[in-house]
């Protein structure tokens, strides 16, 4: 097994959690984000599709889902930035007897700040789990599991997964999830009842292009201080909602392709969002061999390419749904990773980019936070 190195993290440092198909890496820098050090790999040989930093209360906890092709998926955590990990002897995220078997954990979402012991996991097969004891145990969210639509959801290329969980920071009980392929669902009562929220979102691969559900939503991003503002990257299509998902407006104006996976919103400006367009579902690579992030600063009214510091020749890259994240600094840090193992960072809202790493395993998740 590879030698694992740890990073020394001080409060106020910037962390970038990078989940790959072969383990988790932890990058840290001082608050200036001028130089990053690498920690890891943790869980070598395991796919880490989801990681999260939990700073609620006085915690400094990293959650990481590690999935072994052989031995299954486990939710782990560390309170010392990777020096020691707590790994449950038996899986804490597990389906009830007589239902299904867990295949993968796609998303880890801490609950609202006022509920520091609440934690959510979105999983494959598509389901949501909730913990109310800070991850010691989880329960299947039955309201979604028993939804009459569930039997008609179909697996996308990544399997039938619930890959996005966005908790409403302002309304207790408000949670929005995305399922491939099922679409967007929202609960306003803490998970007891769920309603499909796909009005205006296209399903190009179905006879009825605007069904109630069945869309292949790739990612949703919510603005933290304007929770009704959501952005959505669809399997063909870019959308914005200003009413918490009740309706969606097409915002694919001036992009080389509206196909893609990742979507991130600026931490302080709800008009600003970031995507990495891919050519098509048939060729899931950056168009023209140029790696470009596209940014809107007017809520999707227009998009501009950002390419300074990014390769513009022979760069047929793929950025998957969770492989982009932002920190919370005023001049935002934007981070993304590619299937070819390159990790890029911007510390100026996306104006310019530098490579933090060039040869990691395929990157499937990127999350950034202030420690």
């Amino acid at each position, binding site marked *: 097994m590879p030698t694992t190195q740890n990073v020394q993290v001080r409060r106020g440092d910037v962390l970038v959690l990078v989940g790959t*198909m072969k383990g988790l890496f932890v990058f840290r820098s001082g608050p200036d984000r001028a130089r990053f050090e690498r920690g890891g790999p943790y869980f070598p*040989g395991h796919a880490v599709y989801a990681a999260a930093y939990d700073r609620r209360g006085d915690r400094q906890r990293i959650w990481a889902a590690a999935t*072994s*092709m*052989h*031995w*299954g998926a486990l939710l782990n955590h560390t309170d010392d930035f990777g020096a020691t990990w707590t790994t449950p*002897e*038996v*899986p804490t995220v*597990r*389906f009830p*007897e*007589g*239902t*299904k*078997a*867990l295949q993968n954990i796609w998303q880890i979402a801490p609950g609202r700040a006022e509920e520091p012991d609440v934690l959510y996991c979105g999983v494959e097969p598509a389901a949501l789990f909730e913990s109310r004891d800070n991850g010691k145990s989880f329960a299947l969210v039955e309201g979604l599991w028993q939804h009459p639509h569930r039997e008609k959801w179909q697996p996308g290329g990544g399997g039938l997964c619930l890959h996005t969980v966005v908790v409403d920071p302002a309304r207790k009980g408000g949670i929005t999830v995305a399922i491939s392929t099922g679409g967007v669902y929202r609960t306003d009562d803490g998970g007891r009842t769920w309603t499909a929220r796909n009005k205006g979102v296209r399903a190009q691969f179905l006879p009825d292009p605007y069904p109630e559900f069945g869309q292949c939503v790739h990612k949703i991003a919510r603005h933290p201080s304007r929770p009704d503002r959501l952005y959505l990257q669809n399997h063909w299509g870019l959308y914005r909602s200003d009413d918490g998902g009740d309706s969606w407006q097409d915002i694919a104006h001036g992009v080389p392709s509206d196909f893609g996976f990742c979507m991130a919103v600026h931490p302080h400006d709800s008009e600003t969002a970031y995507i990495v367009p891919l050519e098509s579902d048939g060729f899931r690579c950056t168009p023209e061999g140029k790696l470009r992030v596209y940014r809107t600063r007017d809520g999707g009214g227009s998009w501009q390419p950002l390419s300074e510091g990014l390769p513009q020749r022979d760069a047929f890259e793929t950025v998957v749904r969770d492989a982009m994240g932002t920190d919370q600094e005023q001049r935002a840090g934007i981070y993304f990773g590619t299937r070819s193992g390159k990790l890029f960072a911007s510390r100026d809202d996306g104006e310019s980019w530098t490579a933090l790493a060039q040869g990691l395993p395929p990157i499937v998740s990127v999350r950034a936070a202030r420690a």
Partner: protein
Amino acid sequence: MTVTFHLTGFLRAYAGGAGDVRLEVPGGTVGDALRVLAERHPGVSARVLDEQGVVRRHVNVFVGSQSIRDLNGLATALRDGAEISLLAAVSGG
């Protein structure tokens, strides 16, 4: 009857480092033996079986030199002194 499990390296961490685990099993099948193993070493069992009690797709369970997939699965009958190997399949990427 007495059954001995042989554990591949990854699983030994969940059995206190032991490579071999010898158990007294009241029933007569591989499933019975795995249930006893789950009581003694739940971490081993959880990595071999999913939460529905099915052998994980990329895990192989051998009785002697034969895979239980070629026998009768978890219902495969055991003899006293049986040796069961829990191994990772040759798969990956």
